[in-house]
C-alpha cells in the first residue's frame, strides 16, 4: 500500500509548485525517477520550504512525457529526464530563468512555447470530466475537496429528493459515455422505480479497446470524482452498495482507487451515515478477468457473480433484474465522473455545451499516426478535423491522413471527406461508425484499409465469447475471407458474401460485441472499396502493406551503391557491386522491408 500523505504538509505555504505528471504514460517514461531527483535537487539548494513537488494524474499530452507544469507561472516542460533536472532546478527555481530547451516547440522553425494555455493541444480542449487533471494530487482527498469536491454529495444529501436528482440528471441531457449513449437520467429512473429493498450500482471500468485509456486516466487523475458520482447515483436510485469493476491490467488506477476509498471512509464520505445525513453507501472494488466482452453489462454482471462472462437476453434489463437478481444500474467511469459537476453547476449549464442530441464533453484517447498522442477532452459537436489537426497536430513524418477509426475495434473508419463532421452520437452513426468509449486511431496513407479490417476482425474473433453462433462462426468466416483477400486469393463475389455475413451477424447476435463486430469491414467497404477491388481484381495492395501482393525493387537511377541494404538484408537477397545499382533477387526476398527502412536515398520501391 502507498505511504500515507499527511494533511498538515498540504497546508503549508509555498511560492512555487511543480506539478509533475504521474499518469501511466509518464510513469513508464520514468516520471517517478524525475520526481525523486527533483526533490533531491530542491533539497540540495535548500528550497524545500519554498517549492513543493506534486505528483498529479495524467495531464493528457502523453506524447511529450514526462511532463511538468510550474505554477503560478504556468510554464510547461516536457520530455524531462533525470539528467536535465539539476539544470532545470538551478536555472528556473534558483535563478528564475525558465529553461527554453525543455519547453514545447511546435516545429523546428517556431519558437518554444512557455505557457501551457498557449499550446494548441491544450487551448482547444474543454475540461469538465478532467477538470482536476494535473491540478490535484489524486492521493490527497483534501486537494479534491479544495476544488469543490464532495460539495455535490452534500447538496444532494441535504437538500434534494432522489426524484429531484434524477430529474436534474435527465434535464442535463447526459448520455452514457461507455458507448451506447443511453440517457443516464432515464436509466436511473428505471432502476429507482424497480421494486425491491436491495439495489446495486456498478461502475464499469473494464476498458478493453486496444489503444483506449480514457477511463484509466480519469481514475488515475481524479478517483474521488468517480466515488462522488457513484454516491449521488446510489442516493438517487436507492442503493447502499456499489461495485467498481476494473481491469486487473490497471495497477496504478487500482492503487489510487483503494487509497481514495480509504480516505473517503475516514472522512465519513463513504460508509454509514454519510456527512451525518443518515444515508449509507459503500463501494467495493472488483478486479476484472480481462475479457473484452466483460464491458457488456450482462456479461459484466455474470463475471461479478463469479460466472462465465456471457451476455444474456434482455429483457429483463439490469434495472429490473441485475446483480444477484436485484435491480442494478451500471454506468461507465466517465459518466460517473460527470455527475458531481452537473449537480454543482446545474443541468442547464451542462446542457448548454454540445449539440442538439449530445450534451457535454467527451474524452478521447488519440493514438496512431498522429503527432500529439494523448488524452483530450472536447465539447460535443467539435469537428474531427479540429481534433486531428489542431489538437492532434496532424499526421507526422510528412505523410498524408487517410482515415480515423472511432469507437474501438467494433467502430468504423472515417475518411478525409467526412472530417468536417461535428462529433455526436447520431452523426457518427450516420457515417457508419460509433462513439464507443472514445478511442480514436489515426491512420496515414501507408495504412492498408483491408489489412486494418483484418486486424480488428482478428481481435474480435478471439474476444467473441462464443455463445452466439453468428458471432462465433460469423466473425471467424469474415476473418478467413479478408485474410484471403490480403493474401491475393480474393474473388469478386467475396464482397457480397462479406456484406451478407455482416448483416446476419448484426441481426442474430445477442450483445453489442456481435452487433457491432462487422463495422470495421462495412465502413472500410463503404469508403475504401477501391482498395478492396485493387486487392481482388488487380492483386495489388496500393498502400504497400499486404506482403503477398507487393514486390520490392531498387530504382537503379536513385541507388548510389552504398550497399547498406545489401549488408542489412537478413536473406542475402540483395546483390551488386560497390558504387553500382543493387538488385533484389525476388525468389529470396521475404518482403520484410529492412532494405526500405535502411535506404537513405529512397531508392527502394514497393510495388
Amino acid at each position, binding site marked *: 500500500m502507498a505511504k500515507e500523505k499527511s494533511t498538515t504538509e498540504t497546508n503549508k505555504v509555498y*511560492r512555487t509548485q511543480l*506539478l509533475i505528471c504521474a499518469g501511466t504514460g509518464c510513469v513508464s517514461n520514468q516520471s517517478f525517477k524525475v520526481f525523486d531527483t527533483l526533490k533531491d535537487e530542491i533539497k540540495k539548494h535548500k528550497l524545500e*520550504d519554498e517549492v513543493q513537488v506534486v505528483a498529479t494524474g495524467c495531464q493528457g499530452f502523453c506524447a511529450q512525457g514526462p511532463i511538468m507544469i510550474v505554477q503560478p507561472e504556468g510554464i510547461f516542460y516536457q520530455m524531462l529526464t533525470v539528467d536535465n533536472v539539476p539544470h532545470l532546478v538551478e536555472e528556473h527555481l534558483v535563478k*528564475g530563468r525558465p529553461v527554453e530547451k525543455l519547453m514545447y516547440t511546435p516545429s523546428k522553425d517556431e519558437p518554444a512555447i512557455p505557457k501551457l494555455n498557449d499550446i494548441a493541444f491544450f487551448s482547444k480542449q474543454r475540461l469538465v470530466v478532467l477538470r482536476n487533471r494535473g491540478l490535484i494530487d489524486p492521493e490527497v482527498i483534501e486537494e479534491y475537496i479544495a476544488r469543490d469536491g*464532495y460539495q455535490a454529495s*452534500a447538496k444532494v444529501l*441535504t437538500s434534494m429528493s432522489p426524484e429531484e436528482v434524477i430529474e436534474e440528471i435527465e434535464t442535463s441531457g447526459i448520455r452514457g459515455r461507455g458507448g451506447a449513449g443511453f440517457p443516464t437520467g432515464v436509466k436511473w429512473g428505471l432502476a429507482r422505480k424497480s421494486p425491491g429493498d436491495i439495489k446495486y450500482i456498478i461502475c464499469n471500468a473494464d476498458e478493453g479497446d486496444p489503444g483506449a485509456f480514457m477511463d484509466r486516466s480519469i481514475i488515475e487523475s481524479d478517483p474521488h470524482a468517480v466515488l462522488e458520482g457513484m454516491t449521488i447515483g446510489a442516493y438517487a436510485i436507492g442503493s447502499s452498495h456499489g461495485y467498481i469493476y476494473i481491469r486487473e491490467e490497471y495497477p496504478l488506477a487500482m492503487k489510487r482507487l483503494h487509497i481514495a476509498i480509504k480516505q473517503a471512509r475516514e472522512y465519513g464520505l463513504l460508509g454509514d451515515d454519510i456527512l451525518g445525513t443518515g444515508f449509507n453507501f459503500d463501494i467495493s472494488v472488483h478486479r476484472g478477468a480481462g475479457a473484452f466482452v466483460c464491458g457488456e453489462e450482462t456479461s459484466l454482471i455474470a463475471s461479478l457473480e463469479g460466472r462465465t462472462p456471457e451476455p444474456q437476453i434482455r429483457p429483463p434489463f439490469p434495472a429490473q433484474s441485475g446483480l444477484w437478481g436485484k435491480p442494478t444500474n451500471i454506468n461507465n467511469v466517465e459518466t460517473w465522473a460527470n455527475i458531481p459537476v452537473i449537480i454543482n453547476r446545474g443541468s442547464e449549464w451542462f446542457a448548454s455545451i454540445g449539440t442538439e442530441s449530445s450534451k457535454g464533453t467527451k474524452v478521447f484517447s488519440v493514438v496512431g499516426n498522429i503527432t500529439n498522442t494523448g488524452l483530450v477532452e472536447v465539447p460535443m459537436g467539435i469537428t474531427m478535423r479540429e481534433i486531428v489537426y489542431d489538437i492532434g497536430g496532424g499526421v507526422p513524418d510528412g505523410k498524408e491522413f487517410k482515415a480515423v477509426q472511432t469507437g474501438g475495434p467494433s467502430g468504423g473508419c472515417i475518411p478525409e471527406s467526412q472530417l468536417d463532421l461535428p462529433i455526436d452520437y447520431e452523426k457518427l452513426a450516420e457515417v457508419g461508425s460509433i462513439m464507443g468509449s472514445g478511442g480514436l486511431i489515426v491512420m496515414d496513407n501507408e495504412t492498408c484499409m483491408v489489412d486494418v479490417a483484418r486486424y480488428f476482425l482478428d481481435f474480435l474473433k478471439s474476444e467473441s465469447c462464443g455463445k452466439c453462433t453468428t458471432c462465433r462462426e460469423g466473425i471467424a468466416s469474415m476473418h478467413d475471407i479478408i485474410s484471403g483477400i490480403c493474401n491475393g486469393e480474393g474473388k469478386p463475389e467475396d464482397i457480397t458474401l462479406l456484406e451478407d455475413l455482416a448483416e446476419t451477424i448484426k441481426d442474430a447476435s445477442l450483445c453489442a460485441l456481435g452487433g457491432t463486430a462487422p463495422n470495421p469491414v462495412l465502413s472500410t467497404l463503404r469508403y475504401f472499396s477501391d482498395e478492396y477491388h485493387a486487392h481482388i481484381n488487380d492483386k495489388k495492395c496500393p498502400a504497400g502493406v499486404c506482403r503477398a501482393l507487393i514486390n520490392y525493387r531498387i530504382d537503379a537511377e536513385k541507388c548510389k551503391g552504398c550497399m547498406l541494404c545489401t549488408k542489412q538484408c537478413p536473406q542475402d537477397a540483395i546483390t551488386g557491386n560497390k558504387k553500382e545499382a543493387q538488385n533484389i533477387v525476388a525468389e529470396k526476398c521475404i518482403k520484410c522491408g529492412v532494405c526500405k527502412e535502411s535506404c537513405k536515398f529512397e531508392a527502394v520501391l514497393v510495388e
Partner: protein
Amino acid sequence: MAKLKPEDLSKIAEKMKQQTTLRAGAGRAKVTVHMGTCGISAGARKVMSALLKLIAEKDVQDVILTTSGCAGLCSKEPMMTVEIKDQAPIKYVDLNEEKTQKIFNKHVLDGKVVTEYALAKGSERVS
C-alpha cells in the same frame, strides 16, 4: 480522522485555498522577487523567506508569490515587483526584511503604494 459534516467541506477548502490559488494562477495580487545571481547575493533569499513567513502568519489566501530572474538593475537589488490585479506593477528596490514587511502590509494587503521604496511604476514593454 473525524467524520465530516457538510459545513466542514468548505472549511477544508478554505484551508487549502492558498494552494489552489497558486495552481490556478489567479490571485488578487502577485509579488515577484527578482532572484538572479545579483539578487540572491544581495539578499533576495531573505526577502523571499520574509514574504513566505508573512503569508503564513497572516493566513493570506489570495496572494501569489513567485520569482523571476534579474530585473536588470543589479545595483539596486534585492528588488521585487508588486502587482495588484488590474493595476500597474510597482517595482521596489534596495530591500531588506523590514522594508519587505512594510510593503507587504501597506501595498499588498492594503493597496497603498509605499512610494519611498518604489523605483518606478510599470514594466518594460516586451517585444
